[in-house]
């Protein structure tokens, strides 16, 4: 891990104010989400504390605003800021888990394809090609739809979050697999792997320990850029009403619920979760862009 | 009067680590119909001089001093649009690699026609007829059929012939040919050079022929300029420079040409390498490699001065300096 944070990377980090700003923003978002139970001014899920009298309060800076609810309240009198912090928790959880899943899946399949070669390689890469013909979000929607159809409704509702993680993860594995496969193909033909075979070591084990460090930087870059995609994909699915259940609202769910009040003038219920989503995704994407440029030896 | 006159030309490249001087105090002239060969190692500034003359220096490179005059008129400070009318019409250009010089998506006929209609008061119909004529003149067989072919349908040598036709078709008075044969097969190089030489003579076109191939220079040029580290080291009639070079660098360069008339055990080579633009030594740029260097060479930069029947930038030829 230490190798990543060597002086070169740190130097290029401090030289780019946009990157520093994105890093700070991303950190604030993550901290706000992770520590929501302690930081949020209200608990939006504590039904006892909800007061319908407080419903539809506009943000604190407008005339009818209330300082207790800085970003206003929704139709049930829930504090929008607190709902955002709890919602970001779900969004980030799904995002990170989906990326972890597709990394694991992609790296494993990429290693296998590169190492075994032949038919396995051809089959896996053909599947990846076909899947890449379609946009990731469509694949995620479809996987989600199939699982939804396959499972009884009550079972599905219980594991909905995992279904979304699974669907988004599946939609994103080919990128990882292709990169890892490429590096594996290069390593496989090197002499030390042949030598390992001769002296009876398992070449697969040797390769894993040699290939993995080589592909760490590209995998890290793809993972960072995928995190933005995964968060957006989750928000899109939830907005479409086929993502996480309303009992655990993510930012996408909040935006969908708030969308109903757009016309009656309560814009803050949907716009603030939207802004939170944009800020989060933009900062993650900028970090990913920077990481890609910084780790790319061609540009250095 | 000279056709082209370059006076004290200086080209700079501003970079993050300070300004690099790519060309420094370069002066020479080309008479109408004359062929001036420009030789030197890669990076000596030969191609840069050509680019400065046609007004197409790659940014951030810029002319920082001196003048370029075409028929007595300054062209180095013209607005883009006026300079554009000179390019192709007054000064034609030939580039090194014919495989990349032609636009792959247009037929050679179209590229010829658009060049002529841009500069000459003729319509597309006449331009097409002339284009066929040009292709015949540069030796493309069955020109009337081949005019609608795309560049990839020609071999490298044929493509360079097309490039020559393109450079000449608006009848410029001067051609800047930048390494026109370097990318070609050795067997074709001689044909293309012979073609260039013949056409230049027939049309009375002057030529600045940039190359690192001394054989090409000896065969084609009337005069030759030897460049080193962004400056002209020696300039003079081609016979003199080849046979009796006066600058130690030119002498070294000439000694490295394999002679055709006798066997030699080993060609001479110049020790060391040309300095990078960021590390040009004080005094004469050649002094660290020069076998004759003395005190003055390390402190003072020599300008061109008469030396024998050429001009050389070398203190060995200064008044009162002992050889």
């Amino acid at each position: 891990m230490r190798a990543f944070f060597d002086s070169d990377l740190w130097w290029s980090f401090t030289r780019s104010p946009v990157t520093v700003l994105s890093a700070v923003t991303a950190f604030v978002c993550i901290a706000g989400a992770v520590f929501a139970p302690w930081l949020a001014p209200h608990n939006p899920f504590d039904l006892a504390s909800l007061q319908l009298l407080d419903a539809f309060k506009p943000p604190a800076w407008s005339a009818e605003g209330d300082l207790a609810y800085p970003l206003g309240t929704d139709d049930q009198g829930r504090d929008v800021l607190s709902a955002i912090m709890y919602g970001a928790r779900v969004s980030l959880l799904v995002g990170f888990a989906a990326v972890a899943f597709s990394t694991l899946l992609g790296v494993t399949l990429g290693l296998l394809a590169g190492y075994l070669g032949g038919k396995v390689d051809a089959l896996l890469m053909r599947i990846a090609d076909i899947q890449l013909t379609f946009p990731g979000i469509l694949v995620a929607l479809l996987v989600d739809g199939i699982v939804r159809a396959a499972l009884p409704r009550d079972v599905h509702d219980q594991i909905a979050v995992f279904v979304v993680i699974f669907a988004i993860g599946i939609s994103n594995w080919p990128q990882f697999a292709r990169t890892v496969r490429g590096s594996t193909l290069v390593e496989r033909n090197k002499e030390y792997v042949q030598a390992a075979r001769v002296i009876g070591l398992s070449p697969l084990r040797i390769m894993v320990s040699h290939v993995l460090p080589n592909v760490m930087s590209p995998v890290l870059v793809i993972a960072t850029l995928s995190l933005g995609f995964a968060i957006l994909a989750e928000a899109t699915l939830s907005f479409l009403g086929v993502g996480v259940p309303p009992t655990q609202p993510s930012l996408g769910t909040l935006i969908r619920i708030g969308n109903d009040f757009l016309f009656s003038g309560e814009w803050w219920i949907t716009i603030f979760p939207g802004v939170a989503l944009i800020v989060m995704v933009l900062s993650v994407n900028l970090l990913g862009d920077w990481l890609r440029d910084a780790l790319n030896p061609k540009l250095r | 009067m000279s056709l082209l006159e370059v006076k004290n030309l200086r080209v700079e490249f501003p970079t993050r680590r300070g300004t690099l001087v790519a060309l420094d105090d370069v002066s020479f002239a080309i008479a109408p119909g004359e062929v001036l060969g420009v030789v030197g190692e890669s990076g000596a500034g030969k191609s840069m001089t050509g680019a400065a003359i046609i007004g197409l220096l790659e940014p951030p490179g810029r002319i920082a001093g001196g003048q370029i005059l075409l028929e007595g008129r300054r062209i180095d400070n013209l607005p883009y649009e006026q300079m554009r009318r000179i390019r192709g019409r007054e000064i034609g250009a030939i580039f090194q690699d014919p495989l990349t010089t032609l636009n792959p998506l247009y037929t050679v006929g179209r590229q010829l026609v658009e060049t002529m209609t841009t500069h000459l008061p003729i319509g597309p119909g006449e331009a097409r007829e002339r284009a066929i004529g040009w292709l015949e003149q540069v030796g493309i067989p069955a020109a009337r059929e081949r005019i609608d072919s795309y560049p990839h349908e020609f071999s490298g040598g044929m493509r360079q012939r097309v490039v020559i036709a393109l450079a000449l078709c608006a009848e410029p008075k001067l051609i800047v040919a930048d390494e026109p044969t370097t990318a070609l097969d050795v067997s074709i190089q001689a044909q293309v050079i012979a073609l260039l030489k013949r056409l230049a003579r027939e049309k009375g076109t002057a030529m600045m022929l940039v190359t690192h191939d001394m054989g090409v220079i000896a065969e084609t040029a009337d005069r030759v300029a030897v460049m080193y580290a962004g400056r002209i080291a020696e300039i003079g009639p081609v016979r003199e420079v080849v046979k009796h070079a006066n600058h130690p660098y030119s002498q070294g360069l000439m000694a490295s040409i394999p002679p055709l008339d006798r066997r030699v055990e080993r060609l001479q080579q110049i020790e060391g390498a040309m300095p990078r633009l960021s590390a040009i030594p004080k005094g004469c740029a050649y002094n660290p490699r020069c076998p004759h260097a003395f005190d003055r060479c390390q402190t003072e930069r020599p300008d061109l001065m008469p030396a024998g029947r050429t001009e050389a930038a070398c203190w060995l030829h200064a008044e009162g300096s002992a050889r």
Partner: protein
Amino acid sequence: MFAFIISRLLQALPVMFTVSLISFAMFAYVGDPVAIMLGQDFTEAQRQQLIRDLGLDQPFFVQFATFLGNAVQGEFGLSYRLSRPVAELIAERAPATLELAFTAAFIALAVGVPMGVYTGLYRNSWLSRFFLTFSLIGVSLPTFLIGILLILTFSVWLGWLPSFGRGEVTRLGWWSTGFLTWSGIKALILPAITLGLFQLTLIMRLVRSEMMEVLRTDYIKFARARGLSNRAVHFGHALKNTLVPVITIAGLQLGGIIAFAIVTETVFQWPGMGLLFIQSVGAADIPVMAAYLMLIALVFVTINLIVDLLYYAVDPRLRVGRGKGH
């Protein structure tokens, strides 16, 4: 030329085959169509009859072949949710989606390409910097948020444009078009911008980087050395050379428009295929999902084929034999 098309069609076959296999697997193995279609009260005999009617007692390959045969004829059975033929539902919704997608694609190309050319040519002008910042936001904004922001601004606050539906449509045979009425056109504006914006920014960035690449090539330098006008160099020579990669990627991106139409149609309650699909996903309506999947695959394959043909038309190097111009 003919051989070229045939070879491309052969490459498309595995994609279509895989997708139909997935569609078929959804039909045959996901959920229990018999239970869904029978409802609450049924006898065992009725159940057996239905299984036979649906061909579910046949071997796998027979079922798959039957499915393929039906699919080719546009026959996908009844929607579980709406109890109407799927083909009919899709034919009803297709004009709305296609008109939306084409308008969005048109906006993306008609605005994205000139912006890309401009930012590629004048890299350091303030307008270029503005376009680039704008494109970064465009890439990071999710489609549904763009839609919500547009609705908030132009429908709720300014009240200029409608926020849902297609407005008044005119029927031309089985096709229904919104292009012929003022209200139909007004209703199309916001959804089309929403759908096209993301592709627009992508196309702009792509054209820009290709343009910068091409401007560095020798043939552009040579075109300048021949004294051609800036117009001829930039648009005649440079732009045409950027087209080859731009067509490829833009083609794929335009395919993405069909997919993202799902989101846009949901935001604007646009009565198209995407809305139908998302309602089917919510209701586990397998026949509609399967049919939609096949249709989308067909669209993508067709777009890829068109891209290849355009490529062929633009780049003479792909043509075999001696070209004679046009």
